[in-house]
């Protein structure tokens, strides 16, 4: 049932995963660690949440299991690596633009005073 992504905002978890994968392929545990660093520990993914999100993203065609594996000395044969599809990259970019617009609007409404302007 490989439908294409139907639009609408991504869940925060999904967006974070896409962000991690935008840097390159990664396996489950490295995604958990990476999001944790990225969000200063605010988003701590549990395995169940992670793999359900990965399942949804795969189903929606935004990510796929990586065919290329990392260099053999870095590879962990047991693990499954994920990478971004072209569509996933587009969706992540669209989501980022949507967020940027939101930030612009917030700035226009003077909600971000004191946080520095351009």
């Amino acid at each position: 049932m490989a439908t294409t992504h139907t639009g609408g905002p991504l869940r925060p978890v999904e967006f974070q995963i896409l962000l991690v994968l935008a840097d390159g392929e990664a396996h489950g545990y490295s995604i958990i660690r990476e999001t944790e660093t990225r969000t200063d520990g605010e988003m701590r993914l549990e395995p169940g949440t992670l793999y359900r999100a990965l399942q949804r993203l795969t189903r929606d065609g935004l990510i796929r299991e990586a065919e290329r594996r990392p260099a053999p000395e870095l590879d962990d044969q047991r693990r499954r690596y994920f990478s971004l599809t072209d569509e996933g990259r587009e969706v992540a970019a669209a989501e980022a633009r949507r967020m940027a617009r939101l930030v612009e609007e917030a700035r226009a409404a003077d909600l971000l005073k004191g946080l520095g302007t351009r």
Partner: protein
Amino acid sequence: MTRARSSVFAAVSIGVYRALLWAYPQSFRAAYRQDLVETFSDRLDAVLRERGPRGLPVFWLRTLRDIVTNATGARAQQFQVAITGGGRGPHSQRKANLMENLFQDLGYGLRSLRKNLGFAAVVVFTLALGIGANVAIFSVVHAVLLTPLPYGSPERLAMVWGFNPGIGREVASLPDFLDWRDQNTTFAGMSAVVVQSVNLTDADPGTERVRGARVSDGFFQVMGVAPFVGRAPTTEEDIPGAERVVVLGYGLWQRRFGGDTAVVGRAVDVHGNMHVVIGIAPPGFDFPREVDLWMPLALDPTRFGRRGDFLTVVGRLGDGVSLDEAQTEMTTIAARLEEEYPQSNADWTVQLVSLHEQIVGNIRLPLLAFLGAVGFVLLIVCANVANLLLARAAARSSEMAVRSALGAGRSRLMGQLLTETGLLAVIGGGVGLLLAKLGVDALVSLSPGNIPRLEGAGVEGPVFLFALAVTVGTGLLFGVAPALQASRTNIAASLRQGGSRAADGSRSFRFRSALVVSQVALAIVLLVGAGLMMRSFMELQRVDPGFDPGGVATMRLSLPGAQYPDAEAQVAFYRQLSERTSGLPGVARVGLVSDLPAMGGGNYLSFAVEGRPPPSNAVSMVQDAHVSTASFSYFRTVGIPMMRGRGFTDQDRSGAEAVAVINETMVRQYWPDEDPIGQRITFGSPQTGPWMTVVGVVGDIKDQGLDSEPYAQVYRPFAQNGRASMTAVVKAESDLSALIAAARRQVREIDPALAVYAATPLAELVSGTIAQPRFNFLLTTVLAAAAIVLAAVGLYGVMSYSVAERSGEIGVRMALGATQSAVLRQVVGQGAILVVFGGAIGVVASVFVTRLISTLLFGVQPGDPLTYFGVVGVLAVVVGAASYIPAFRASRVDPMVVLREE
């Protein structure tokens, strides 16, 4: 060792996680199981690496939340897919059905509990109390009794005691120790230890009083620990006159030297002599207990006699040698010494005690008693919850009937009910875990301080698994019977009745009555236990110690040998201190003594009486006395009465005739028909003396603790027997803490390098000696109170239910002329039967159970009738109230209303 333990936790955790993954839908599992497990174990590794086993509870809570949320979500999603046309292979149909049922049941259970929030809250809270108390006590048992000692192969460590049938276990003399050590073949090593308080002086922050241990060669090897930094003392350093060295305790090193390794190699002043720091002990190394530094013993054996017992001996058994084998060999060695030195060693043998037994031996019984008591409380909790569930099952019988009529099989109904109780148990267990955490903290802070290794207690690792097991066991125990009962519903009857009353109430009532009977019986046992502990404690408090600790402050001092080399200097110092302290405002009297009364310990010496043959070596003739040194004003200061003759005076000084004051027990034992005044005794040789003349007799005091019998005691005047360590006792009208502060200042003015330690009111010290009985009594009372309240609630539930059930019958009887009081009597009587029955069982059980704790009691027999009467009285009042309320309600039934309803 930590790694090995961690890997056990990891293996168990991963196994549990694998099992829990069954909660996910089959398709999700098939796709991601391997990855989930890998990711889980990566995170687990990280947690264990960073936080160790104590990180596990939080980690597992997060994991459980993750599984519950996502498994439910995934299943809901799958359900949607199924409805919207996504097919599923038939192979997994059956399993999937089971899981789907489980999740349906969970959802249903949550909803139905939410509808009955009060009921759920009561059950969860009761369970949480029961489980929490058990986990808390178990965590103490685990830390104190089950955790191996932090030494290398601790099971091979044993204490080596001298043993005399008339005296009991005794520390060893230096010559005996050396013979034991050198002649045995079963020990890999043996070391002697003596604990000694010392003054530690260093530029900053001045002088401090610390506990030090002098240890013989090879001590650290025997204990199986290597210094954290630096090295252990060498054999050469254990010789008199060798360079003085010291190993610092980890805690002292951190506290006093800021954990700076540069201190190794530096010299510090220990008790007036410079010692080179050669090493730091590893963290957690605590043998002997609460010792801060270790120094070589470095004693000359030729200067010590065979009955100068002062060394605690610890040995490490050789590889593969059992304690029994070593005991056999040591007995042989002791027998040889007995033959060789009959004068000193007759009747002396050797007794081995494993180190673990030595450390926890005294506390094992109370701890196990507490564990048994909380176990009883948990059983009562189970009975109570089962009772509540039964009542609820009765109320829900029509619901069950409808579901069963609509095609739900019995197993499906049972599954549903068990899921609900499982849910209650898990929530109860979770809350219980939190309570246990609080409980452990409370226990640690309330404990009398004589429980070794208590500080290691916590809710983690194995304790967590114990909690899990208790929760599951509890759930099964209280859940199965009600589920069986409820799923056995008779459809037709329930539906006909419109569901207001259970159809097969009589069977249910019988079962619930049986629960109440067992609750009452269990509560009685706990009440009797608590009652006996309370009586023991009261008896202890009533004991006349033989002295008056009120308004007396104590202050312990020890003079370093370098500055105060002889008796003259020591006497001069203490005289100056006494004079200055007497001048402080509010001070009535100042005395000095070598060892405080009722604190136990002290110096025991055998003596000879002038003109009598030296005591034979027969066991019954061990002729020794507790020897103390006291100043002339000591007796009056602490209120020990003078019975005969005189106390010490100013004239009893060095050079004058040596004198002694003895206690009444000594008079009874040795001069039953003579006047002891003027008799002469000696602690030296009966041929040469030196002799002391008995000049007075004082009253007995409870010298070895309030629960002990007085022992023969000899006091010698301080002015004739100067010594370095004395305790000043100050009787004052004024506030003792202010007085102690002022007295400390006096000490510093006389000698700024001196440290006062253990400055405490005497009354506090004395009450500290009964802290353990007080703790026993408090804890058992709390548990017994919980038990009786729970039992009362159980009885109340059963009676209310029975009254509600029989309101029709009662209405008819009242319509036919039964008076209110007759109804009241009948209902209360019905409750009374249960209580009498349960009470009888409880009393019989108590007789057996309390025998197990008889050694914890003082001044009261396990079969103490007063306690039993008291307990029955308490029970009568509480359960009387519990059955009176429903009975009263029954007696107020309006016959008209009831009959109309019928």
